[in-house]
């Protein structure tokens, strides 16, 4: 046991300080505490606000016990999603495995320590989204000490089963499939699956967003209750804990907690037995797999064909992103997925509301749509979508230590910067087209307006791409060992958001200033404004191309 605790400590220390380094947080503890503190307060505030509103509504109609069920299921679901993402990495792809294997450690010690790391990471989040609402519930319903004690048990016990469950599934997959190279595919698949679930959920719940009459609310609650009842059958621990949390009797609470504890322990023993049997096999197989699969295919003569450098370079950028699931998810897919998700949600929402889509479009089209105000809204929406395209903001960092390559080949740096932002501009255009398509469907705008909007949005896209590569050049992250460090845990990713907000603010300002201006004139002014800023930033990038590359060593 002693060794397990020590191993856990080391793993934790390593993964948390790694995270710090990746988030760009300096090791100075003061600023670190402030950053974490602010983040924590922000989320806690958000959760309290949302939770309070929901709970308040439920108490008004005496259905507050549903809240407990919802929170417990949310914890359960969240842990499942989190574990899908972290488990395969923590169990199979941490760099230290080769080092741990020759140490005098029993397999179960390593597995236990790894499991602990996963659980502790879960608890941090569960505390926020699970424990705080449960306390709120206690305060608002005036619960006694038994409730709070039970809540602590609940928060500790609920995440364990899903972690074990997902880990077992992953271990089976890893030991049967020889997955030396399939981690990426697996993660991509899991990500898409989760995305599909989220879309499905948002479709099925999109009716909820509208203001509801009491009657409808009651219906919904019956529905929600029914759903909880249904799922509860499959997840006994949640069932027992719900009972324990909502009962008034100490005896019932203790019995239910003991039941949960019993199931968790059984699950744990099962997990350890399975892990002992198959974890190491899969681990070793993955670390040193049976050589690489080699395709001895003759090289296609076409491969030898010349191509223009810009094609070749941009092609290289695209290949690098498309073949790397993390970059694919963060850089390329958002351009297509986000607008589509929006479409699905919007359309499904209208339909479930009983109001036909046609009625909506008719209603919208009766209003004057061809105005500068509407044009700015559309451009604002495009801004909102394109800020999730992280191609340009990671253009340099994605290359990692290999970024010096740019500096020793005989191609001017400015040209290379351009080649690197072209994918961003292309993906921006994809988003713009999809968004304008939706807008056209809903609003039926004149073709001239669409073209004008397309041009201005594209210019804004170019401006964004140039600014972002400058940001990445000034603050590159070149020493990373996992793509997540660049495409997810990178503080630079705030900048596209800031710029989008800035752009939206400018448009809001223009709408107020120019009020009833002719739509083409308005778009024209906006266009000229962004052409000028784009030219200026481009000039800056060109003039400073060498100085900007100073950080690339």
């Amino acid at each position, binding site marked *: 046991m002693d060794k397990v605790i020590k191993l856990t400590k080391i793993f934790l220390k390593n993964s948390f300080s790694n995270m710090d380094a990746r988030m760009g947080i300096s090791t100075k503890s003061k600023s670190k505490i402030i950053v974490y503190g602010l983040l924590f307060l922000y989320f806690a505030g958000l959760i309290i606000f949302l939770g309070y509103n929901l709970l308040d509504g439920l108490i008004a109609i005496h259905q507050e016990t549903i809240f407990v069920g919802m929170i417990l299921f949310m914890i359960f679901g969240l842990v499942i999603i989190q574990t899908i993402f972290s488990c395969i990495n923590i169990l199979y792809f941490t760099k230290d495995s080769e080092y741990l294997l020759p140490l005098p450690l029993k397999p179960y010690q390593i597995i236990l320590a790894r499991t602990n790391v996963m659980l502790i990471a879960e608890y941090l989040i569960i505390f926020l989204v699970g424990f705080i609402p449960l306390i709120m519930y206690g305060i608002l319903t005036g619960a006694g000490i038994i409730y709070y004690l039970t809540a602590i048990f609940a928060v500790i016990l609920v995440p364990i089963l899903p972690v074990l469950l997902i880990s077992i599934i992953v271990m089976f997959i890893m030991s049967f499939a020889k997955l030396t*190279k399939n981690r990426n595919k697996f993660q991509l698949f899991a990500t898409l699956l989760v995305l599909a679930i989220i879309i499905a959920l948002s479709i099925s719940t999109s009716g909820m967003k509208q203001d509801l009459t009491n009657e409808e609310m009651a219906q919904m609650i019956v529905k929600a209750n029914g759903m909880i009842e249904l799922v509860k059958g499959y997840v006994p621990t949640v069932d027992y804990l719900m009972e324990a949390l909502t009962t008034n009797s100490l005896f019932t609470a203790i019995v239910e907690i003991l039941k949960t504890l019993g199931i968790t322990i059984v699950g744990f023993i099962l997990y350890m037995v399975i892990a002992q049997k198959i974890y190491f096999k899969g681990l070793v197989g993955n670390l040193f797999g049976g050589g*690489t*699969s*080699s*395709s*001895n*295919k003759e*090289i296609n*003569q076409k*491969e*030898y*064909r*010349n*191509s*223009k*450098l810009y094609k*070749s*370079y941009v092609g*290289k950028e695209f*290949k*690098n992103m498309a*073949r*790397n699931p993390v970059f694919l998810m963060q850089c390329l897919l958002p351009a297509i997925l986000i607008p589509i998700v929006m479409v699905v949600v919007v359309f499904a929402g209208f339909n479930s509301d009983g109001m036909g889509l046609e009625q909506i479009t008719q209603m919208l089209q009766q209003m004057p749509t061809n105005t500068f105000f509407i044009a700015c809204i559309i451009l604002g929406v495009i801004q909102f979508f394109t800020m999730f395209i992280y191609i340009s903001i990671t253009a340099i960092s994605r290359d990692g*230590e*290999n970024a*010096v*390559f740019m*500096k*020793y*080949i*005989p*191609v*001017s740096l400015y040209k290379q910067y351009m080649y690197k932002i072209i994918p961003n501009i292309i993906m921006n255009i994809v988003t713009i087209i999809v968004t304008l398509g939706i807008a056209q469907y809903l609003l039926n705008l004149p073709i001239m307006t669409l073209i004008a909007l397309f041009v201005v949005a594209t210019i804004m896209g170019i401006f964004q791409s140039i600014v972002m590569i400058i940001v990445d050049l000034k603050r590159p992250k070149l020493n990373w060992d996992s793509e997540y460090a660049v495409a997810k845990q990178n503080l630079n990713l705030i900048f596209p958001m800031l710029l989008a907000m800035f752009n939206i603010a400018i448009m809001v300002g223009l709408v107020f200033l120019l009020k009833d201006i002719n739509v083409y004139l308005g778009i024209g002014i906006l266009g000229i404004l962004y052409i000028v800023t784009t030219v200026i930033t481009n000039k800056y990038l060109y003039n400073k191309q*060498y100085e900007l590359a*100073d950080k*690339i*060593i």
Partner: protein
Amino acid sequence: MIEIKNVSKSYVKGKKSVENLNLEIKNGEIFGFLGPNGAGKTTTIRMITGILNIDEGDILIDGKSIKREPLEAKKNFGFVPDSPDMFLKLKGIEYLMFMADVYDVPQNKRKEKIEELTKKFGIYNELNNQIQSYSHGMRQKIVICGALLSEPKNWILDEPMTGLDPKSSYDLKEMMREHARSGKTVFFSTHILEVAEKLCDRVGIINKGKLVFVGTFDEMKQKFKENASLEDLFLEITEK
């Protein structure tokens, strides 16, 4: 030909990482650049290749200044960096074709050159696989192939033998000799003295940013102790 003229570089003010370096690597010469880890080898190579700015002095590659005409100068050399983990997501052939596009290798030469180089290193059959699946040695080889594709006049190699098995490093050395014999220049850094002794026409030893010796290997032996072992020589020179 590579001319390094009075070059200095400091990362921190007042502390020079490379100080007043003068070197001339002539055509037809293999030049070995030696020194312990952290002596300034990498800094020097980074300045020659344009990765780092030069604080003082200048470097000319076939007469083109890396400071003033960087693109022209960069066309005149092929560079093999010390870490071969590059473009892991590209297939071998895609990487080589990309390099061919970057260095403007004419269409009719590509196939021949790629086949010649990759067959020599025994990686021809791997070209259709992603570089990610290559072993360290194979990655090293494909990077070397990429750098030599355009038949540059000057080769600059940073620790090229690391991770190569004896057969491959033998092949590489033979290629270096051939290259020098045809009147071109090879500049490489290494910390393996035996390699330098057998291969180099001249060696330079750098320590703490200063060039402490330039000359042939025999001169080095004469200048210091007559019969001392290589290790002792090296230690003596660098510990002064």
